[in-house]
């Protein structure tokens, strides 16, 4: 990124900050702030940390006059947020943060828009856990589009603020389900009766709370889904399970189409058909766990001293607005148009890397070389290091 480009982006950012309403986080005066500026080393990252502000006016004035490329505040609250070392700061709790990032989620995606859509689904999954299992109220959860490849969730419920790293790690372990013990979900029992012995396989019912109900729902919808497919395809899917051949696949398919069998699966009884091997159910539960779990980036949540992007600031790597959202807004939020703050005036740039960008509901196939592009697209490309300003 050359000096001219840096200067141009900073001017546009300045324009945004002059008129935008910058929303400071609650108890901002107890937080540490960090900034990355459009200085000589940029886009190499030099974070200026240990900043603190006593008044809202001071904070907003600083951002408006310094115009950072990236703005962060600590999730933590401190006695002396501006102290140079962590020990001297005096930790007084921290918001509980979740970071859902496409890179970490290892989402397979085709376009930027597709990737953001998948990340949004993961975010909704996590929010459902927080609300249903952890009983957090909608007001306690702030959802933020990160301006990059995902979403941040800030939880500010007083009891969460006090949690230390190991406790936060436990919450992540709950959400991912990676350490969920099979035996807590999957029960095999031999029951005796007048007609001999039978093996009963059980999982929690669909009504049960927490992981149990989620796993049950996943299995039921898997079976419904398979039952709706045409036979060849359904058989193919079922045969991907170990130990399932043509005959057993047909048996499973028969069950998947049988309403009363499905009803007993909903109640948690997996013994409806004796000819379906236990290993099939076990594998199904495993797949359910992997799919149902939410996968926030663990070190981010466990680190009680981390800096997080300031909502309502701009992300210097994309030019997008770090956008705070309500749960209702999240459902319909389209980052590639709703997080864009720049206009459509034509700007001359020299594209250094060809690309295919979908932005503001329009697809652009961009070739290398000098050309005029609408400002919002030009800034996006410059921020990503794919174009230089060419006045």
């Amino acid at each position, binding site marked *: 990124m050359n000096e001219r480009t840096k200067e141009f982006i900073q001017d546009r950012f300045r324009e945004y900050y002059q008129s935008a309403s910058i929303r400071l986080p609650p108890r901002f005066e107890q937080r540490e702030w960090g900034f990355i500026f459009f200085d000589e080393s940029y886009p190499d990252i030099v974070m200026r940390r240990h900043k603190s502000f006593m008044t809202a006016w001071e904070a907003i004035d600083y951002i408006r006059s310094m115009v950072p490329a990236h703005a962060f505040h600590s999730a933590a609250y401190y006695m002396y947020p501006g102290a140079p070392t962590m020990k001297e700061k005096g930790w007084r709790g921290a918001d509980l943060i979740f970071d859902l990032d496409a890179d970490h989620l290892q989402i397979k995606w085709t376009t930027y828009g597709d990737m953001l859509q998948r990340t949004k689904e993961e975010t909704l999954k996590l929010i459902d856990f927080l609300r249903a*299992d*952890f*009983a*957090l109220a909608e007001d306690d959860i702030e959802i933020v589009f990160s301006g990059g490849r995902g979403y941040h969730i800030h939880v500010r419920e007083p*009891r*969460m603020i*006090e*949690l230390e790293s*190991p*406790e936060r*790690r*436990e*919450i992540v*372990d*709950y959400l991912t*389900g990676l*350490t*969920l*013990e099979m035996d*807590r979900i999957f029960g095999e029992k031999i029951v005796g009766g007048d007609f001999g012995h039978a093996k009963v396989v059980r999982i929690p019912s669909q009504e*049960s*709370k*927490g*992981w*149990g109900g989620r796993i049950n729902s996943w299995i039921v919808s898997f079976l419904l889904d398979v039952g709706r497919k045409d036979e060849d395809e359904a058989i193919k899917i079922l045969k991907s399970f170990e130990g399932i051949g043509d005959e057993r696949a047909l048996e499973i398919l028969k069950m998947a189409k049988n309403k009363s069998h499905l009803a007993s699966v909903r109640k948690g009884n997996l013994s409806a058909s004796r000819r379906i091997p236990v290993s099939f159910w076990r594998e199904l539960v495993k797949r359910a766990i992997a799919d149902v779990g939410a996968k926030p980036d*663990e*070190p981010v949540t*466990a680190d009680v001293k981390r800096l997080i992007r300031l909502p309502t600031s701009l992300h210097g790597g994309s030019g997008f607005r770090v956008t705070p959202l309500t749960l209702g807004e999240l459902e319909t939020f389209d980052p590639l148009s709703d997080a864009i703050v720049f206009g459509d005036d034509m700007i001359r740039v020299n594209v250094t890397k060809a690309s295919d960008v979908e932005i503001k509901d329009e697809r652009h196939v961009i070739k290398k070389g000098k050309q005029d592009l609408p400002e919002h697209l030009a800034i996006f490309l410059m921020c990503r290091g794919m174009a230089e300003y060419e006045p």
Partner: protein
Amino acid sequence: MDIAYAYYPFTLRASDYVKRSGRSIESLLDGEFGKAVVRRAKERVIQAIKGEIKKAFGADDILAQVELFSYPFARIFVSCIGNYYLIRRYALAEAKAAYVHMRGEEPRFLEKLGREFNVQCALERRDFRIHFADYLKFASGMHDPKWKLVNRCLEDGCVLVTKEEFARLLQETIRDRIQSSLPLDVSPSLKKALSPHMAEISEHFEEMRAEFRSDEFEEVDSECFPPCIRHMLALIQAGQNLPHSARFALTSFLANIGMSAEEIIDVYRASADFDEEKTEYQVKHIMGSSGTVYTAPSCATMATYGNCFGKEQICEWVSHPLSFYRKKLYYSGEEDRSSAESSNAP
């Protein structure tokens, strides 16, 4: 007084009783009752050092009173020595002793006890519903996977635990409270008055420490190091520089198993960026020059910072690199013993 509180002398109710009795610590330094109290206090600390505080006063009110008053004295004894390991050991023994009795209590009683420690719960027949934040505060330190939140039924923000589990969580709370309230400030005159009793306690404590040292890490056996530590040592030998978190882990581990600062500094000599003065400062800092003695990070923390390398069988059974070392030392000792035995066989 409700005699039951003699089992739980760390509760507000018990300490209120002691306060309201009008018997000051000084007044107990004389007289028959006082002598019995001091004798029991001394025994209490010695029992804690040995690992288990035994409480047997039956239904005798006087014995219960002795038991109750011995608690503040025991705390004073522990504070006079003031050693951090002793405080930890004592707090653990008190909490464990309380647990033994809590297991047998009625759920209602435990509910009340919990309230005193700010552990809010709702009784559900004989089980307890606790908010997950309260639950995590204590359960996150437990090793058995059954305590993991993911393996509990989490419903509307609450975790259901059995009475026995609730008692176990209270044990942790109690240990925490006792440990964080010690050492007390003991006036020089009181210290002097108690000094005749101190010798015996110190003797037991030193004995325990000596045993701990010889029992635990008699000499450093690098063959028994966990794979993560071996990996770090290999990197240094290869002249590579370790990231900060790895240096901290390695130094604290080596210090915890009894290596001296000089020996540890020698380990770093092969580093490409070795700086004797800086290394000495950092090693001594970790070993407690600033007042805090650091313990090596747990497996979970090692993994979080990407310092967990090459799992071995023993790794499956432990959650701390020091436990790995301890276990492996034990097993290799066993092997030596059994091979010695077999070679002695006719």
